[in-house]
């Protein structure tokens, strides 16, 4: 699975674009399995880098969503409330929240597509 190079990635398997759009990776949806529930914060919520800001549930498990960087939520993908399976079908095309990034410098610490792909293959090697 190619990881788009127009965004950055976290070791917790989230992606974020330069304009602050956040989702989870193909790898994340694959390991979760059938996603049935996505719980997201309301517009205006402050989220903090590394802290949980929502949850994704599959049939078998609950996972926290971790903020790649800090910021304020400016948009929430409401379609995921009724069609969470979209994330399984197209994880990199199914955004979850948009945020106004607080400090662009925090973006620099995130993984590139190539680094993330390497991280995923190393994780799988365990």
């Amino acid at each position: 699975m190619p990881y788009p190079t127009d965004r950055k990635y976290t070791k917790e398997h989230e992606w974020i674009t330069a304009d602050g759009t956040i989702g989870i990776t193909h790898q994340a949806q694959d390991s979760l399995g059938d996603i049935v529930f996505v719980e997201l914060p309301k517009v205006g919520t402050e989220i903090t880098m590394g802290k949980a800001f929502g949850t994704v549930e599959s049939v078998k498990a609950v996972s926290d969503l971790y903020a790649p960087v800090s910021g304020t939520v400016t948009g929430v993908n409401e379609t995921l409330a009724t069609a969470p399976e979209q994330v399984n079908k197209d994880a990199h095309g199914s955004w979850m929240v948009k945020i106004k990034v607080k400090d662009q410098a925090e973006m620099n610490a995130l993984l590139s597509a190539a680094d993330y792909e390497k991280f995923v293959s190393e994780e799988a090697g365990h």
Partner: protein
Amino acid sequence: MSVVEATPIVRKTALNAVHRQMGAKMVDFNGWDMPVEYPASIGCGIVAEHMAVRTGVGIFDVSHMGDIRLAGPEALTAVQHISMNDASRLAIGQAQYSALLFPQGTFVDDVIVHRLGEDQYLLVINAGTREKDFSWVRDNTRQFDCKVEHLSDDFTQIAIQGPKGVDVLQKLSDADLSAVKFYWLTRGTVCGIKNVLMGRTGYTAEDGFEIYIPADETTSARVWYEILEAGKEFGAVPCGLGARNTLRLEGKLPLYGHEISDTINVWEAGLDRFCKMEKPDFIGRAALEKAKAEGVKKTLVGLEMVDRGIARDGYKVLDQAGREIGYVTSGSPAPFLKKNIALAYVPPAQAAVGTTVKVEIRGQEVKAQVVPTPFYKRPKKT
């Protein structure tokens, strides 16, 4: 001081390499390296696998289940002594759901008792309790003239489950499977292997068979693939433990360590109809008599989430005022029913169908309702 930790031994069934080859997601299940689900690329995933079993057929490797054989002149007496159902009612070739109990009336394990012959019984037991069960059975049957054997590693056990299960297996066997009733057994040739034990049993709340073949890898893999191939026309898919769990939950079939355990008794678990108090004495009976007289303090109920949210194992159940009254033993989205369901222990006073309760989900109180169980009952064949 240094602590030397025992290296955990990962156990594998004879089909382990097959699961990996098929791209299954593997998990540690009670020390067993087992498939939880197969990949979406071959039409699988928990939901797809679950639906295949409800509407067509799904194939499971359940070789991690254990098998104990009791044989000898006093085999029946021994089985009667260690299990709660009445094995004297079994005809040769018949099976029953039962349980092994501690003297306190709580569960060592739940089992399927198969009567294989005049003085021969096979107990099919859970993977995680194999050694405990075998020791328990051996230690508690020493006084009887019967041989107790642990045959768990001798068989690859494959479950062929779903309304089309019988059709799939029939293509591969010379036995007349239509004549085999639910919870009865037969023997016949399967995929060229003679004298294979086939039981019309399962853990999916669906029709189907479980077959027991020799546990060598080559034979196991060949039979696995032949069953999948024979099932192709019925949409057969391989199924993992994920679907096995959601299927059994919809059917309210208990899972050891969740609905039943060494701290829960038969009455609490609602398994009264499998416990025959009128049969000769058995381990746990006296305690159960006392427990019945005293009345139960908690009882197993089915919950359906009313508000958005999924109850998971261990979550607290609250009354409408927010007071803790019980706990969830198993909870999940139900793929066929398309509802979020759970099993939970609550006091009898709050167990009536229609009672509104709440489940604490990550700090939030989410409304749920006590509903009739089983959540799912397979349609009767016309």
